[in-house]
């Protein structure tokens, strides 16, 4: 038995050795490069497609849980081994967090990605990648907030789709007595979105000044939206449950949420699978504006970016992969979310226009047309504004308070966080 096993082992070793030799031969012949890639699950298809369509490059793709990415990179950099050449960042904050002295990972792409190509991305879509005037990543997908609504139900209720926040609040007041709500008022990013819509300055980078943030939550531009949220939470037209909590999901499933503000990916990834709207109902409209604004100013929630390692041995290959992943039209056409690269987005949208799930073919138009209104301050920061909002505003709501009263606490928290993370505050 022992001798038999050792023979098998020997054969396997010989076969393995041969295979390695053959592979090595093939490698030198085609001058192949291997790039290590850390991806999330939805982006695996993109990297696989690149691997297959590029003979000279082999991708060694590892799936990393999105929330673990920065921690694992810190460990890899500290150990100075197994550092990936390319990463997909599912949180826009990662760009800033991975370009500090202590975690200096990201490659500066400013002069590596041609300006003409940069201009093909939607305006402001690369703002999470512009850090202190340098382009440190490329945006994969858009995530600005638009108005999602149940078209048939709105018609049945005899209500027009609001175009201003004043109309939105009014609609909420009219519908709340009948048990309807217009979305949730406790999820941090949408909360930030409401506040930002009026031009509130919640940790916005100051143009032309490195590492400088404008934080001022005392202006009417913040107080007005905050009062609206307070009013709507009080009369129930904004839910006190998060968008993924069972109570709100039930409310949405049973047709009690005829309209809500949500990012571009909400239709396909939340309203359709989780809220289970029946086909032919869901429609979308442009983001809301305040009556005294000329045009909407819409915040985003999500949107991933691709980044490369500044010390990679294969700089050109890395840049090529970053550009291809974010802007190859054929690849992005089959992407899961609205591409930030405009030509890709237009090709991608054909699918959406033809999708019978939506009530009309205007959903894609609403998503694309509103890209122009996306907030230029949707930037990458070294600290999490959402976590600060959860600690202050959301807890205030939990104890029955008003967010207007918690704005000073949020301001203090943000200023402290900004200073701790090396920002100057204006």
């Amino acid at each position, binding site marked *: 038995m022992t001798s038999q096993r050792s023979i098998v082992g020997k054969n396997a070793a010989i076969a393995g050795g041969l295979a390695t030799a053959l592979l090595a031969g093939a490698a030198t012949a085609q001058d192949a490069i291997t790039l290590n890639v850390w991806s999330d699950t939805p982006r695996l298809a993109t990297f696989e497609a690149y691997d297959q369509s590029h003979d000279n490059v082999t991708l060694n793709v590892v799936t990393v849980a999105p929330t673990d990415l*920065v*921690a694992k990179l*810190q*460990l890899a*950099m*500290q150990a100075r081994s197994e550092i990936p050449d390319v990463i997909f960042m599912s949180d826009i904050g990662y760009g800033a*967090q991975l370009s*500090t*002295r*202590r*975690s200096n990972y990201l490659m500066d792409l400013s002069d590596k990605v041609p300006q003409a190509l940069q201009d093909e991305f939607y305006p402001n879509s690369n703002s999470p990648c512009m850090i202190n005037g340098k382009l440190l990543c490329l945006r994969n997908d858009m995530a600005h907030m638009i108005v999602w609504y149940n078209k048939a139900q709105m018609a049945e209720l005899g209500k027009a789709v609001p175009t201003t926040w004043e109309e939105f609040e009014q609609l909420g007041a009219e519908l709340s007595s009948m048990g309807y709500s217009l979305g949730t008022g*406790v*999820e*941090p*990013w949408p909360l930030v979105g409401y506040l930002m819509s009026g031009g509130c300055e919640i940790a916005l980078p100051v143009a032309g000044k490195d590492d400088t943030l404008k934080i001022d939550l005392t202006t009417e531009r913040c107080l007005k939206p905050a009062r609206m949220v307070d009013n709507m939470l009080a009369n129930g037209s904004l839910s*006190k*449950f*998060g968008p*993924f*909590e*069972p*109570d709100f999901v*039930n409310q949405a499933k049973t047709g009690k949420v005829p309209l809500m503000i949500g990012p571009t990916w909400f239709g396909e990834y939340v309203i359709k699978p989780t809220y289970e709207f029946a086909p032919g109902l869901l429609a979308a409209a442009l983001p809301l504006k305040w009556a005294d604004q000329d045009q909407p100013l819409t915040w985003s929630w999500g949107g991933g970016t691709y980044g490369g390692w500044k010390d990679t041995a294969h700089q050109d290959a890395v840049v090529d992969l970053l550009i291809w992943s974010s802007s190859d039209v054929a690849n992005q056409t089959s992407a899961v979310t609205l591409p930030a690269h405009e030509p890709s987005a237009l090709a991608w949208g054909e699918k959406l226009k033809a999708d019978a799930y939506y009530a009309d073919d205007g959903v894609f138009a609403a998503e694309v047309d509103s890209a122009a209104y996306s907030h230029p301050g949707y930037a990458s920061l*070294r600290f*999490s504004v*959402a*976590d600060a909002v*959860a*600690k202050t505003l*959301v*807890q205030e*709501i*939990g*104890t029955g308070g008003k967010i207007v009263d918690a704005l000073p606490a949020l301001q203090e928290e943000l200023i*402290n966080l900004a200073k*701790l*993370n090396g920002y100057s505050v204006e």
Partner: protein
Amino acid sequence: MSYLFMLPYLVLLFMFGVFPVLYAFGLSFFDTIDMVFWGLTNYEFAFNDFRVPKSAVNVLTFVSLWVSLTVLGVAVLSLMLDSLGRRSATTLRTIFFLPGAVTSSAIVVLWLFVLDPSVSPFQSIFHLVGWDTRQNVISGLSFAGVFAIMAYFSASGGWIVVFGGALSSLPTEVMEAARIDGANRFQLATRIKLPMIWRSVVLMAILSFAAGLQLFVEPQLMSLAGQQFSQVDWSLNQLAFQYAFKMGDFGASAALSTLLVGTSIAIALIIIFATKFYTID
């Protein structure tokens, strides 16, 4: 010969206990990027972090709640179990132990459901006090209270088993003598058994205190319930994690961790000397 038997433990203790502590202690005086000696700069950074005092208060609140809950709960339950028949006591002890056999991360997830008034088995109680959302429940119990309850249920079962052992090793002639003298079950528990197992109670308090200072999993996993519950810098250990794995500042992380372990050791020593823990009667 006895040292030979201790060797595996000592090796593991050195590899995963002593060495990391010494390594962190050394690291806490360096800038980990350029590897230059920084003196107390890392400690200064931790002291100047506006979140550290708040987190320290959070953790101390949690520890005092949890340790009192554990000392009281475990002692009462163990003494009550000991007055039962052997068979039913063993069965109950096993049931109490079960939550402790589940990893604390899984327990947190379970508790997130228990705390949600829309799905919780304690729904009616929550509604009675007017808590309609999970946010209400958490605000009502306070984060320290929520974490203390979570930790109590995951850790107390193990201690109940330990106390079962301690109680069953008490000399039966003392118990019989007390019974003959007319002590009822309550007097037997409070006058005879409790004074005889107080060392186990002190040990439990010390170990719970040290473990409690390192609170990490419970607050860190709050965001599983949704981002509105996220508490990334609630405890000191979370801050140490943030320093290392968000900011890449392993030196500051080591400094804060050193302070934590120093506090644990100091307090354990105080308790040990104040209670003359190792003195043999």
